[in-house]
């Protein structure tokens, strides 16, 4: 910046290029593998350039499935993942925006108690209470249902805190003007709070969609039927570590398909993604 560099900006470019390559290489390789046939990969003959079996492999992956452990086509799994991710993201947004609205804009007994009850859950990832949660979901008869997949992951303090923080920045005068203009709790929410929250909602959506899509341990426990599996656990079942029978070309096609939606979301909505990430951590 200040002084002239002898080699221009060569060093930073080089370092960044190496970084980008290391980050991209595993994915590139997965894509390459998804375009070769099983034999080429199994023999260890695969070269790091795409092969000729792209359409065939992806067709089989999406519509037919592997011939080993899990026989469900990946199309079904993607649908399940999509339903779960949308359910978690939208569910979270819905329940946290209304709870934040209550906490910020109303005064009532036990307001702070309610806030703290929600707040404390910030510290309890699902992994540490996995079996008791499993038992409750089982008792409620929600094993192998979308409700069972999403509901336990829908509650979290993150959304409520994020919306609370945003609502605090809305000037008091807007509520006062709305009151004078004859808007009640519902109209103020619908006509003013909601339109102003659009970016916050979108940012939270991006983060939560990724969070939901990438869930692993919970769907692993809660789904027993193959047709309820999500793609992230489906792929694990395709890979039999000790077994030469793993159909790697299909597994890698599945990996690519599993990465595609969340990565596309991040790249296309980078600004919202960064906003969501930075603000949910505050």
């Amino acid at each position, binding site marked *: 910046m200040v002084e002239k560099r002898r080699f221009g900006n060569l060093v930073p470019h080089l370092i960044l290029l190496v970084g980008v390559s290391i980050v991209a290489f595993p994915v590139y390789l997965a894509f390459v593998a998804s375009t070769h046939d099983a034999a080429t990969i199994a023999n260890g003959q695969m070269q790091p350039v795409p092969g000729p079996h792209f359409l065939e492999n992806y067709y089989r992956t999406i519509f037919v499935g592997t011939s080993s452990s899990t026989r469900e086509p990946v199309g079904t799994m993607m649908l399940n993942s999509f339903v779960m991710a949308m359910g978690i993201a939208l569910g979270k947004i819905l329940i946290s925006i209304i709870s934040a609205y209550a906490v910020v804009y109303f005064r009532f007994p036990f307001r702070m108690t309610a806030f703290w009850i929600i707040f404390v859950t910030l510290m309890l990832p699902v992994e540490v209470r996995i079996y008791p949660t499993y038992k409750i979901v089982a008792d409620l008869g929600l094993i192998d249902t979308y409700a069972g997949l999403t509901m336990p992951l829908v509650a979290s303090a993150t959304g409520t805190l994020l919306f609370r923080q945003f609502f605090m920045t809305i000037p008091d*005068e807007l509520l006062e*003007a709305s009151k*004078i203009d*004859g808007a009640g709790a519902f109209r103020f929410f619908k006509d003013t709070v909601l339109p102003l929250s659009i970016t916050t909602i979108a940012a939270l959506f991006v983060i939560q969609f990724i969070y939901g899509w990438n869930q692993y341990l919970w769907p692993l426990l809660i789904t027993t039927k193959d047709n309820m599996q999500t793609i992230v656990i489906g792929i694990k079942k395709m890979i039999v570590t000790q077994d030469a029978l793993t159909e790697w070309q299909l597994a890698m096609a599945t990996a690519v398909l599993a990465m595609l939606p969340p990565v596309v979301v991040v790249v296309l909505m980078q600004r919202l993604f960064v906003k969501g990430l930075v603000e949910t951590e505050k």
Partner: protein
Amino acid sequence: MAEVVLKDVRKTYAGGVEAVKGVSLDIPDGGFCVLVGPSGCGKSTLLRMIAGLETITAGSVAIGPRVVNDVEPADRDIAMVFQNYALYPHMSVYDNMAYGLKNRGTPKDEIDKRVKEAARILAIESFLARKPRALSGGQRQRVAMGRAIVRKPQVFLFDEPLSNLDAKLRVQMRVEIKRLQRALGVTSVYVTHDQVEAMTLSDKLVVMNAGNVEQVGLPNDVYKRPASRFVATFIGSPPMNIVPGIVEGDGRVAVGGHMLAVADMAPGLAPGTVLDVGLRPEDLEVSGGPGIRLPVDFVEELGATQLFHGKLDGAEMVVQAPTGAITSDTRQLTLTIDAAKVHLFDRDTGARRGR
């Protein structure tokens, strides 16, 4: 249209702060009442109680014949203009103005008629489709006014509507508000801490201090006969000089070794009583003969007038004179004042000691 009547209105906030300590006020139908006072004196609180945005701790607020203590803001038939305008940022100018009418179920063509009419009056017709963020401060101010007038309310409430504008625009908008209020004849309550606004806009000036009303009156009466030392120094610019004086006998006070005649001194003030004597900078006159001798420390040139600064018996003193009336390198002034323009205040309570 309606009158607004406050009866012993009080406000104690949840934290125990007593913001308004018993205010009674009678604003006639079509009147323009300005609440003025220093920051934190409770003007906004009082206004917000009229609006229904704060609960009334004690006393009553009536708009027209109706006591509105327990009436929702929307049902009080008032409109309010906020300091930061409080325009809905995501709605167009048109929708900002139409929102209150829509919520009341006013028919669409009636809304359209009223919005267009208000836009015409305020000369904002060309911005109707814009969002507030695409407007200048002055334009936003007009939209906020527009939002108030489309409602055709009984009462306009203004909370420092001009303080976010630059000096020039403020003068211009002040004039417009006055003209508009005259034309519409809507009872108005206006909060400001700018005494020029207060003087020019009001036909009923209310000076507040620490939650109490210090004085109510026509602006000129308040200026000419301030009820207390506080009002005397608050209204008028530059502020009234307050210097110590000693009662010498009936109608006479000694200030800085000079005897001043006082026209409206309260009867029965014992000789030797120490008082605060108020002398407006613009009322002091330079005399050739005897008078109060003021050593000049420095002079401020304001263009049309000059301000001579000095100290009399330890008190700051300012004399205002038209430019050129006194040569600016004068080292000492000898001052006299019309007996009718001398104000006397109690040293301890600050109350007026005139008749």
